[in-house]
């Protein structure tokens, strides 16, 4: 018969062997596990970057990074990924370029005719090191998000700078005769459709299960009790919504998502065309 000491030595030795085997088997998978962790961490950096981009960058660079003509350049753009670094003479990586630009901003625009930005500085600095709102790791996350467009970015045409008088914000002014076909093209080239048709970021233009299309809705809004704008006709309502989007917000949509500079970037003719197009969506 084994006494207690001998049983303890036997079982203890067995357990030490089991522990060793478990640790070794666990160790065999370490390389893969570390790689997986790295990938997952990168994926989460992109997720976090998407949230930050939406909050900090999308008002100027567009929710989908397609830029806003007359304001800020597109980032979800073939040119940006293929040619931009050469044009500005940057020696580092694309990611470093994005981090550097977001960190310190831009005092003046490098392409003032097309993308003047918001004046001086053209782009604010975002890093806390230089008085901005974001930490370094947050800027890195935004860069990771932007870099994720690299594989799918398409070329974005630069629309010609507006010629003729700009639209302004006086919704009672007489606009020239609008052309719905040209308006439809403008809706695509100004990327309106990205949010109003392709994705439900802004109010949906077309007819849905619950509501009629935008033309009929514009008419109906005027008599809604919560309507806070000044328009008296459907056309004026659309003018107001484009030129001064904060005047009235449709329930369920936040302020500041729709760019508020169309009154200075659209000509009277463009605006008239857009309104004419929207009024055809019944």
């Amino acid at each position, binding site marked *: 018969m084994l006494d207690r000491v001998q049983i*303890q030595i036997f079982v203890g030795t067995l*357990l030490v062997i089991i522990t060793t085997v*478990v640790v070794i088997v666990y160790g065999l998978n370490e390389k893969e596990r570390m790689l997986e962790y790295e*990938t997952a*961490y990168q994926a989460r950096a992109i997720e976090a970057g998407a949230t930050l981009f939406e909050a900090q960058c999308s008002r100027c660079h567009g929710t989908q990074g397609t830029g806003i003509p007359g304001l800020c350049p597109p980032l979800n753009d073939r040119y940006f990924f293929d040619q931009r670094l050469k044009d500005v003479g940057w020696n580092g990586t694309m990611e470093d370029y994005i981090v550097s630009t977001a960190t310190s901003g831009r005092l003046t625009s490098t392409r003032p005719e097309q993308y003047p930005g918001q004046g001086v500085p053209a782009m604010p600095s975002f890093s806390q090191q230089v008085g901005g709102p974001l930490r370094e790791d947050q800027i890195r996350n935004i860069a990771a998000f932007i870099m994720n467009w690299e594989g*799918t970015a398409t070329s974005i045409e630069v629309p010609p700078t507006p010629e003729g008088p700009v639209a302004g914000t006086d919704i009672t002014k007489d606009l020239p005769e609008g052309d719905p076909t040209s308006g439809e093209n403008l809706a695509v080239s100004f990327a309106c459709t990205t949010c109003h048709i392709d994705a439900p*970021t802004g109010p949906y233009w077309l007819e849905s299960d619950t509501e009629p299309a935008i033309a009929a809705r514009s008419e109906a809004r005027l008599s809604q009790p919560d309507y806070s704008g000044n328009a008296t006709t459907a056309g004026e309502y659309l003018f107001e919504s484009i030129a001064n989007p904060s005047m009235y917000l449709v329930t369920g949509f936040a302020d500041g998502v729709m760019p508020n500079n169309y009154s200075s970037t659209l000509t009277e003719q463009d605006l008239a065309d857009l309104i004419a197009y929207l009024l055809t969506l019944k």
Partner: protein
Amino acid sequence: MLKSINFAEIRQRTWNSIDSRVRAITAGMGLHELRSVVRGDPPTEKPNPRYKVHTTSFLFHIRPRYYEAGSTILTNTFRLGFFTTLFLFIEVFTGLILMVYYVPSPEKAYSSIIYIMSNVPFGQFIRDMHRLGAEGMVIFTFLHMLRTYLTGSYKKERSFTWLTGVILLGITLFLSFSGYLLPWDQLAYWAVTIGTSMAEAAPIFGDQVNLLLRGAPDIGENGLLRFYLLHVVLLPLLAILVISIHYYKVSREHGISLPPRLEEGDIPPEKKKEAKRRIDYLPDLMTGEIFWTSIGLVLLVMAVTIFGYHAPLETIANPQVTPLDTEAPWYFLWLQGMLKLGDKSLMGIIIPTALVILLFAIPYIDRNPYRSLSRRPFAVGLGLLAVVVLIVLSYMGTPHFGIESDAATRIVQDLVPEEGVGPVRSVPYEQLQPGVYIVNETPTSRLCPNLDYGCPDLESLFADYTNRTNLAEEEGKLPDSDAVLLIDNWQQDLKKVTFRIGWTDELSERRTYERSIYIHRERGGE
């Protein structure tokens, strides 16, 4: 020539020379003796060399010469104190490895943890062991104390040992708590912010204590460094000092107490004699220690490998964003629960301090000489009551109790928690079909006809969302609600999931709550 060499003599001399070296190292035990120790045989020499080592060797002199047979019965101690010490050793060892990579600064701390997880072989293993060992240490300290209380082992000559034990409970809690901040994630940052803000409630010197701990009005660079130094230098040194005192008392002075029934029960004298039979440290007690160490190690290793325990790591600390569900570490939840009951100074400082003083004073207040449960009903009742009260207070300390957030926020937080996975992030990426899903309009079945196997997880998520909003509407928390779930393709391998809930508030105004999260294909589980 060969004949002139006396092999027997050479053998004898070699043996003697090795034997004397071994005796020098083992402080008195020769090769024969070592062999008989391992075999469990009786001592080979007189006087017993196994007692000699207890005076000649430092490491053996702090160990007991013997324990009484009755006190080594497993159900007497459950080896709780032993395991607490074992966990401390594991903490020191794994902690040292973690210190190689860890950088105590707000800019680097979180990324150094990520580095440990993604670039150090066995990094996650060591971190998980360290975390689980810490939890184990707290749990076993508490159980050890409870056992000591219930068997009345704090009485008479053991009262000072109890006192050092109470100090050790405090040191253990603060060791664990100071380590909590180091990963510098949201969990750490806010739990410690809550914890240190309690110090603020202390009368007279509260602000000073808070400032001393945090190094600034808010936890930052200074606070992190202070917690780090507390965690790796001051508290471990204190722990080693107090444990030495605590253990020396047990091992060299009064031993482990006998089970009350063997000490004062009505049992035959030969049984009492057997209970007092000496069990020597060598080889019995030492083999036992090694045996229990191997059990402790195998359980811990299994837990972090096969059973998949992982130390939590949330997103990087963000002082600007207070998480919706902030929670103290579980062993301080009772304190958080007390704070919900009344004034911060009274509930957070004065009563807890009084309780600690009471804990210290137990052996001096309790004059009842008996140790059996049945002979001290009042003390046992009080102890059990204290445990129940602790559990209830801890439950009250969780965010589920007494904190009302508005219904829409609660629903969305439950489905897409700020930290961790939650139901939405557990839906397989492919099943997140872009679309607009309107509660009580979109049919809840066959949401994705173009997927071969459909999207059962998305459907059950949508059903869950529907149930929660309908329930809230029935309860009157979300009058005339309209709830939408939107899923967009946002980028390559990235989807945007938006929850939008509208309702009419008490002032008959239309309110909306909206929250979007992004989900990447490769994000993985937790």
